[in-house]
C-alpha cells in the first residue's frame, strides 16, 4: 500500500537537526504514532525504530532506522552536523533510492524547530513541513505540520 514515505522520512531527519540536543538523540529509539502522505490523505498507524549514533569528532549525528505502516516498511538514512554558526546541516537519503537532499535546522532549548520544502516525486504534491522534535528525558516527540495548511502530517512518540 502507498505510504507517506518521502514527506515523513524527510521530516523525521529534519527534526533531528537540533543543535544542543543532538548528542542526547543518540541511541536506539522505538516509536509509534500516526502519519499521513498528504494533507488530504487519511492518517495511518506507523512504527519506527531508529539507531542514532553521535560522532563527537565531527559533531555529527548519524541517523539510521526503519519505519513501517501496515503492508510496507522503508529505511531511514541520513546525517546531521552542527556548524560553527550553530545551524545544523545534513543530508537525507530517499527511502526509494532516488538520491539525497540537504536539510537545515536550529535548536531551541530541548526542542528542535525545523522547516523544509519538498515535493512528493510520485504525486507532485507539496509536502513542505515545519517540524518540532521535543526531547523530554527518555521520551522524544516528533511532530510535523504541513507548512501551507497546518495539518498534522506525523505525530510519533519515541522511547529508548
Amino acid at each position, binding site marked *: *500500500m502507498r505510504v507517506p514515505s518521502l514527506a515523513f522520512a524527510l521530516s523525521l531527519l529534519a527534526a533531528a537537526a537540533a543543535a544542543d540536543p543532538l548528542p542526547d538523540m543518540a541511541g536506539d529509539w522505538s516509536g*509509534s504514532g500516526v502519519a499521513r502522505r498528504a494533507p488530504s490523505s*487519511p*492518517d*495511518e*498507524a506507523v512504527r519506527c525504530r531508529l539507531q542514532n549514533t553521535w560522532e563527537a569528532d565531527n559533531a555529527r549525528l548519524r541517523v539510521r532506522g526503519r519505519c*513501517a505502516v*501496515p503492508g510496507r516498511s522503508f529505511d531511514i538514512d541520513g546525517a546531521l552536523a552542527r556548524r560553527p554558526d550553530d545551524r545544523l546541516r545534513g543530508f537525507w537519503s530517499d527511502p526509494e533510492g532516488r538520491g539525497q537532499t540537504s536539510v537545515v535546522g536550529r535548536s531551541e532549548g530541548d526542542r528542535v524547530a525545523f522547516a523544509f520544502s519538498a515535493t512528493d516525486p510520485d504525486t507532485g504534491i507539496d509536502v513542505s513541513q515545519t517540524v518540532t522534535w521535543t526531547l523530554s528525558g527518555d521520551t522524544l516527540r516528533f511532530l510535523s505540520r504541513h507548512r501551507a495548511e497546518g495539518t498534522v502530517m506525523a505525530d510519533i512518540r519515541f522511547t529508548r
Partner: protein
Amino acid sequence: MTALGRLTGRLAGHPILTLAAVTALVALSLVRVGTLAFDSDINRVFLSDSPLSQAQRDFEARFAGAGAEAAILIEGDPRLTIPQIEAARGLALDLELDPGVVAVASPFALRFPPGHPTRPDAPVIPPDLDQGELSRRLAEFEALETGLPVTFTDRALLIVATLEPEAGGRGAIPDILEARAAPIRAAGASVAITGPGVVEDTIRTALARDLMRLDLAGTGLAAILAWLSLGTVRLAALAILPALPGMVATIGIAAWLGLPITVLNNVIPMLVLVIGVANGMHLSVHLARTEGVLSRRITDTLSAVGPASVLTAATTGIAFLAVLVTPNAQVRDFGILGAVGAVVGMALLLPTFAALAALLAPGPRPVGTRAGRVALACGMAAAARPRAWVAAGLLALAGAGAGFWATTPWFPYSSHLPETSALAAANDRIADGFGGVYRAWVEMPPGADWGALRDAVTAVEAVATEHSVLSEVALARWHGDPGIAPPPDTLARLPATVTERLRDPDDGTLRFAVAMPEPMRSEATLARYDAIEAAALGAGAARVIGLPAVMRHGSVELVRQLSFGLLLASAGGALVVAAARYNLRLLPTLLIVNLLPVLLVGSLPHLLQGGHLTPPVTLALTVAFGIAIDDTIHIVIRFHRALGPGGDRRNALSEALSGAGGVIVLTTLLLTGAMAVTLFSVFAPVAHFGLALIASLWAALLTDIVLLPALLMIGDRHARP
C-alpha cells in the same frame, strides 16, 4: 555342528575379549552420534520423483528468497476488543521492522481503492479505532466484492509473516514471534503461531524427546517381560542384553550414514531391540533346555537356533529394503536404517550371546513348557483336520486381500504433530475462518491471457472458501477495472514476494493462490481440495502446485508404493527362506501363513479408520511380515530337523510346536509388551505403527500355530479327510 556354531563356540571360549570387542564396535558406532539430526522437513515427507514433486521443487527453487510462512491467529473471547486489535496492529508493524521477516500480510494493510467515493485510499482499519466505525468500514469494504482476502472477523484476525529461509527453516521459528505476541496476550486475547515452518519446528523438537523415551521404556519393558517369561534373571539377561548393542549401534549408524531421525524411523532402534530380544528368547530357551557341559550347550544352541536367527535377519532386512521401492526420501531413510539395523543387530547379537552365555548361563531347566503346551494343543488340533483349516485360511486370505485392496490411501500431515501440540486445532480454526494455513498455487499455461486467468479465478472462487483466493483479478476488481490487468502501482501495493509469484517476472507465467487446510485433514477438506483442483483445471489452468497439491497426490503415491513394497517384501522374504531350505515347495506355505495376518490387519482400517490406509500402518505391515516369517522359519526348521528322512510328520510337528511354538508364544507376548510403549508416543504415526505391528504379530502367532501345522500336515496319510 554348523560353521556358525563352531565360530560362536570359539567366541564363547573368550567371553571377556568378545564382549570387549563388541563394546568397542558399539563405541565406534557412536563416535558421530553428536551429529545426529532430527528432521521434519515437510518436503521429505511428501516429495518423490513425480512430475508434480519436480514442479514443486522448481517452484520453490524459483522463489527461494522467501522462506516458510508463519501464521499468527489472534482470537478474542468472545470478540476482539479494541485494545486487542491495537496490540495486533502493533505486532504486524513490529514484524515489518523485524530482521528475518520478508513480508507481512495482515488485515491492517487493507485499503479502500483510490477511486472510492468517500474513503479514497484510506485504511480499512483506521488508526483511531472505534468498534462501530470499524464494523461500518469493514462492511463497506466487503460490499466492494473485490475477492481480496480479508483475514478479520469479530472474533479473530490472522497475520501471515513470510520469513527469510534461514529464519524459518531448520533450527528454529524465531522466538521473536512469541515475544511479539506477549502484548496481545497481555490484552487478554489468545495467540496461536502456526504455519508449515512452525509445524516442522514443533515436530523436530518433540522427536528427540520421543526417541529417548521410547528406547528407554522399550528396553525396560522388554527386560521385565523377559524375566517374567523365563523365570530367572540370568536367563532374562541372556535374552535381553545381546539385543542392546544392536539397538545402540543403530542410533550411531544413523549418524554415520547421515540419516536424520524422522517421525517414521525413530521407532527403528526399538524395533531392532525387540527383534533381537525375540531371537535372544529362542537362544536362551534352547540353551536352558539343553543338557550337557556348558561349552557344548552353547555350541549346540548356536548350531540349532543360530542359522534360523541369521535367516530371520535376512528376511527382516529384505522387508525393510522392500520399502526402498518408493522414491520418498523419508521412507527410504526408514528402509535403509531398518535394514542396516537388522543386519548389524544380528551380527552383534550372536557373539554377545555366546560370550554372555559362557559367563551367565544357569544350569539346564524346563522353560516355556506351558506356552509350548498351548502351541502344541492349537497346532495338533488344526493338524487333525488340515484341509478344513487350510480351506478356511485360504478363504480368510481372499477376504483379507479384498479388504486390503479396498482401503483408501490416506496421509494427514497434521498427524505428525505431537498430540500435546495445539497447532492442529489452531490450523483447523484458521481453516474455518480464513481458508487455511497452506497455500496452493494455480498455474496458468504459458501465454495465457487476462481473460483465461479471470475465468480460472472465477471458477475457483466459486468452490473455495470465501476470501481464500489471492489473485491479480481481485486486485483489478479493487482497482475498479476487472477487465484488464491491474496497473504496476496497484500491484506494488502487495509485497514483491507475492506479486512475483502472481506474475512471473521472467516468463510472465500467471498464477493465483488459494489458502486451504491440508487436504487429508478430513473427508470434507479432501473433497474441497479436489473440487478446487477440478475447477481450476476445468477452467483452463495448467496445474495446481504448492504444499496442498503435494500433500494430496504425494500421499496417495506414497501409500501405493509402500503397498507394492509390502508385496515385494512378502515374495522376496518367502523366496529367500524357501531357497535357503532348498525347498521351493515351501514357498506357498510361507506366503499363505504370513500374508494372511498382514492382510487381515491391513484391512482393519475399514473397522477403525474409515478405510484409510496410512503409511505408518503400511510400513508396520511390511516389517510385521519380516518378523512374522521369522517365527515360521523357527517352526519349519525344527519340523524338518525332527522329520528327517522318512520320519513321521505328526511326531515332527509335535516336537517343533513343543520346542519353537512355546518360544513363539513367549516372544509374541514379549514383543507386544515392548512395542506397547509406542502407544505412549506423542506422535500418532508411531502409535499407529506399534498398534498395527502388535496386531500383526498376534495374527501371525495364530497362523503359525494353527494354519502352519495344517499346511505342514497336508498330504499326511494319518490326517483326517
